[in-house]
């Protein structure tokens, strides 16, 4: 919402300066967006009388002028051809900055003659392109006066952001009222005189859609002369960014801004028949004043004449019945539309207009008759003519209601000690009427322009609430909401900044844990993965459906109805999709060797509460080159190590895990695994990314990935640890080499060895895997070290031999591997 300071002063009697006004606007909730003060740059420029202009003694094309700008004659050397004795011009004293050039004006001497200032052209003042000569002002221009003030160029334009609840502040009068309430001057009275009409209006109203338009006024004004509106009106509209069109249209725009009261003018000659009907649309199309064709629906309230739809009520008028320079008889529309209906129609039709933005916030219904009179008077003043009587249909919508405030609540809810009298005074200045007041509370009537106060919007209660509960909640809201509305009014005017800040009282001396165990898991995994050299990324939850398709089938429910871009059109089924794209971008930048991870949502089918938290990681390219350890391509087991590190850190016992080769399609089928705890619970999957995914995304050839399903990880049991067995006897270590078929999982050998001798095998380590020429084809050698930990006594050689034999037997039984 833009307005000029002079326009504000039409409604506000104030001596406050611009800065005080703008600060206060922000304080009361009408946030300042910007101030343009075109006069500021022109402040030093004054109107001057050229007492004498004579030829410069040393230059043919210069004149020496003796100029009086109110402070006595000074000498100015001027090159303008139109500089002449007796003229009035605009004088820039030494020290002024010339807006057109940014030049700082200094005292000087031009060809031997002193020059103590400058007479300016329009271009030099930044007021246009005219540089043929200096500004030539009328003879009656007052010498010494600020040029900007005299020319009306010093009127600052203020722009504020109006929140959706404040329809009344989309009017200069409403803004003035808030400022007056907050102590910036006094609100001027607005009481237009009634124009006594002659005869009935030749056009009348008929409401057939009262739920959208319950009340409408109209009047015909005959024999008007439409044309350009006067300069003052054009200047005002232009200053706030509106284009003057014609006097009749400019008048409607004036009242839209001035009173927040949109009006519309029909050319009576263009109306078919003598009745305008407010009715539901029926699929008709009409050409709107914005030049676009609008097709109306049965939910839209239109204004139709005998020929059809002419206007979309409350939003935009029609071209066919609009006023032109040729209009002689005009019909003025002043209607009240339901805010919700206008909001829905506006959104459906995708039309923004000054009328819509006001109607959808709510219009002051009590103002309609006065606004009609004020508009009539201005039309008569600017266009002449003769007004008919006012015609109407429907009735004023009910708006009268009261609200009460318990003074103690200003303190107990608002946290502020506002004196009771001051609270009352603030409400009164805002236009609330005093209904009653006692020691504890005050009851006021709500002004017609504040539909945001003590409104009766319905609850949208949770489905789980019983009818009794809902009734109780409705009673609670009815008791509290109007009071909170009033507290807000009092506090925003009294000053939110005056409410003393109070630290929250401690809920307990030592705060309880902030995170749930589930949240701690994510934090732990984040640190573990970062500590393992992976860098955390945050990528979008949506992906390109074409890329996502490479990661398996996706449910239709994951598609966005209104994606912002075609490559962000569905929710991702795994963070690997977006992470892999991120790795590809890094590779394209010249960084193919890297590790990324992300902890974020994976979506299953787009239903509520079906997303999972996944810690996904990706390693691409080679390990870092290093003098001590040669670089190598990343391997599936690097990804497995990441998984193991994370799961171990989360307290998952690694003995409880099994790996099977049934990872999803985006992994290499022979170099990937699914990690389960028990037979069912999938905790993670890892492996080499499938070559087709690598190729499609343009990833480095070596790319391994993992996904850890954090929600699937069981809570570690919080048991007290039993005391450890710290045996006094030395452990015995024995190495075994087994010859196993190449396909034998090493883990089977390790497990068999671990379980071979209960209470004696403390650990089993795989220290060698060999496959090659020295073995028969299709076989591999696995070297394991078994640690026996005796507890009661040192082992004898015979006992060691016996235990070793059990290890060999167990491994052979489980895997058919034999001792080499």
């Amino acid at each position, binding site marked *: 919402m833009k307005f000029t300071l002079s326009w504000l002063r039409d409604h506000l009697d104030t001596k406050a300066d611009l800065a005080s006004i703008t600060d206060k606007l922000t304080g009361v909730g009408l946030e300042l967006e910007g101030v343009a003060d075109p006069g500021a740059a022109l402040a030093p420029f004054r109107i001057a009388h050229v007492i004498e202009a004579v030829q410069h003694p040393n230059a043919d094309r210069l004149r020496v002028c003796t100029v009086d700008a109110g402070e006595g004659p000074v000498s100015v050397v001027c090159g303008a051809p139109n500089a002449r004795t007796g003229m009035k011009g605009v004088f820039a004293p030494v020290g002024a900055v010339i807006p057109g050039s940014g030049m700082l004006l200094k005292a000087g001497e031009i060809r031997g003659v002193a020059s103590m200032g400058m007479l300016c052209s329009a271009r030099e003042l930044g007021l246009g392109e005219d540089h043929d000569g200096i500004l030539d002002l009328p003879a009656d221009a007052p010498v010494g006066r600020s040029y900007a003030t005299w020319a009306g160029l010093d009127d600052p334009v203020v722009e504020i952001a109006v929140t959706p609840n404040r329809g009344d502040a989309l009017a200069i009068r409403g803004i003035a009222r808030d400022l007056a309430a907050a102590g910036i001057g006094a609100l001027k009275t607005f009481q237009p005189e009634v124009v006594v009409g002659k005869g009935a209006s030749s056009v009348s109203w008929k409401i057939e859609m009262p739920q959208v338009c319950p009340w409408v006024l109209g009047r015909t004004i005959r024999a008007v002369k439409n044309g350009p509106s006067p300069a003052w009106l054009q200047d005002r509209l232009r200053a706030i960014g509106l284009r003057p069109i014609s006097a009749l249209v400019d008048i409607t725009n004036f009242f839209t801004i001035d009173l927040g009261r949109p009006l519309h003018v029909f050319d009576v000659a263009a109306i078919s028949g003598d009745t305008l009907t407010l009715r539901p649309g029926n699929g008709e199309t009409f050409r709107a004043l914005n030049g676009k064709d609008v097709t109306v629906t049965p939910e839209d309230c239109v204004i139709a004449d005998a020929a059809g739809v002419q206007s979309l009520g409350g939003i935009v008028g029609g071209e066919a019945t609009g006023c032109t320079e040729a209009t002689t008889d005009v019909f003025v529309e002043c209607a009240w539309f339901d805010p919700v209906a206008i909001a829905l129609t506006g959104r459906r039709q995708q039309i923004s207009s000054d009328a819509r933005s006001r109607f959808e916030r709510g219009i002051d219904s009590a103002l309609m008759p006065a606004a009609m009179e004020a508009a009539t008077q201005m039309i008569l003043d600017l266009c002449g003519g003769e007004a008919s009587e006012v015609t109407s249909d429907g009735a004023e919508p009910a708006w009268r209601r009261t609200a009460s405030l318990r003074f103690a609540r200003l303190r107990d809810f608002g946290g502020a000690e506002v004196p009771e009298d001051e609270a009352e005074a603030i409400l009164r200045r805002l236009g609330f009427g005093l209904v009653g007041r006692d020691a504890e509370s005050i009851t006021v009537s709500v002004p017609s322009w504040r539909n945001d106060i003590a409104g009766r919007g319905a609850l949208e209660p949770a489905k789980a609430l019983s009818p009794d509960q809902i009734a109780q909640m409705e009673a609670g809201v009815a008791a*509290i909401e109007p009071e909170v509305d009033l507290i807000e009014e009092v506090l925003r005017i009294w000053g939110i900044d005056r409410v003393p800040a109070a630290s929250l009282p401690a809920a307990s001396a030592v705060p309880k844990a902030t995170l749930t165990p589930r949240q701690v898991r994510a934090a732990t995994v984040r640190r573990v993965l970062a500590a393992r050299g992976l860098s955390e990324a945050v990528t979008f939850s949506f992906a390109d459906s074409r890329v996502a398709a490479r990661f398996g089938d996706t449910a239709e429910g994951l*598609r966005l109805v209104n994606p912002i871009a075609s490559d962000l059109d569905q929710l991702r089924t795994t963070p690997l999709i977006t992470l892999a794209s991120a790795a590809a971008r890094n590779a394209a*930048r010249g960084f193919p060797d890297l590790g990324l991870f992300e902890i974020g949502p994976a979506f299953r089918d787009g239903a*509520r509460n079906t997303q999972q938290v996944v810690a996904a990681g990706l390693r691409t390219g080679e390990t870092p080159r290093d003098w001590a350890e040669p670089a190598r391509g990343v391997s599936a087991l690097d990804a497995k190590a990441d998984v193991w590190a994370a799961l171990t850190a989360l307290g998952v016992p690694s003995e409880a895990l099994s790996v099977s080769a049934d990872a999803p399609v985006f992994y290499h089928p022979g170099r990937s695994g699914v990690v389960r705890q028990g037979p069912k619970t999938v905790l993670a999957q890892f492996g080499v990314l499938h070559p087709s995914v690598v190729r499609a995304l343009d990833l480095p050839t070596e790319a391994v990935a993992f996904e850890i399903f954090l929600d699937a990880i069981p809570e570690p049991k919080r048991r007290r640890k039993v005391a450890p067995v710290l045996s006094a006897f030395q452990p015995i270590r024995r190495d075994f080499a087994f010859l196993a078929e190449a396909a034998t999982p090493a883990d089977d050998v390790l497990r068999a060895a671990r379980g071979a001798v209960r209470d004696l095998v403390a650990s089993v380590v795989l220290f060698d895997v060999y496959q090659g020429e020295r073995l028969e084809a299709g076989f591999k050698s696995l070297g394991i070290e078994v640690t026996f930990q005796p507890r009661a006594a040192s082992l004898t050689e015979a006992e060691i031999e016996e235990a070793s034999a059990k290890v060999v037997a167990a491994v052979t039984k489980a895997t058919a591997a034999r001792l080499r």
Partner: protein
Amino acid sequence: MPDDIAALQAEAEAAIAAAADPRGLDAVRVAFLGKQGRITGLLRGLGQIPADERKARGAAVNALRDGLEAVLSMRQAVLDAVALDTRLASERMDVSLPPSLGPRGVIHPISRTIEEMVAIFGAMGFSMAEGPDVETDWYNFGALNMPAHHSARSDMDTFYLSGMDGGQPLVLRTHTSSVQIISMLSEPPPLRLIVPGRTYRADHDATHSPMFHQCEGLVLDRGITLGHLKGCLTDFLRAFFAISNLPVRFRASYFPFTEPSMEVDIGWNRRTGELGAGGDWLEILGSGMVHPKVLANCGIDPREWQGFAFGMGVERVTMLKHGISDLRLFYESDIRWLRHYGSSPFQPAMLHEGV
């Protein structure tokens, strides 16, 4: 001391001193103290000495032997030290070689900021709550006093999914305020919670991302006032930005789910970007007293319970705190950017270490 013993001592000591390495020294030991050694021979010959002289001579030979053993071990220590020095001198390595630390991993600044928020609000007794990114229209709008015609519901801002839930459209949550509702329905007040999480709006340009992070907060109790709102948020902002006198300004505004509503500004210098000084104001978060209808929609009687809610952009406060200028780079995963702005996993945000 008999002359022959003294001469032997002198001879042995000279031989020990002359031994240049452990091997030479060992030869000297064998020559004098070995089984066939000369001093051993003297001891063996004591039997042939007359009994009255034997004691004195025996003592002298023993003294000679003990003395030589001491001299030998001293010489041994000297020669060992020399040999060690010689060996170490040959064992030099290039200690300027770069050590292998493995690649450095980092934590994303968004996660870091959330950790800091959790630490600071945690100290004020808040706990962290979470909820789904896919929400019904009721949790995201209706319950929060944003009726069907509210402008925020327009297609311009909200991402819709094709599915429905109980007859309601599914949306990507436009704020984490939806989790307020989930929490109020599942836990009775008093409540103190923060909800950091992903949020979505159909907006994409230099200063808007279709996905961003928000941290919602909710305090519900008896006797919580607007003064507490101001105190709590001022305490947070000063701790988060580590500026104990950071100017904080509250000004009236409007949100459907709070009343009174306030925007919160912090003081900064618009020209230099410096926080806490400069006389300009920067909008940083929205807040307000929880609207009675929001409480009532969740079955909480507004006559009994009251409190405040707030919401702030995680990226926004991160950008301000660290002087990051481009929002889009948060999601680009450029490894150079991540390494530059990321933080170490070994320095989690902890109040006792300073956030």
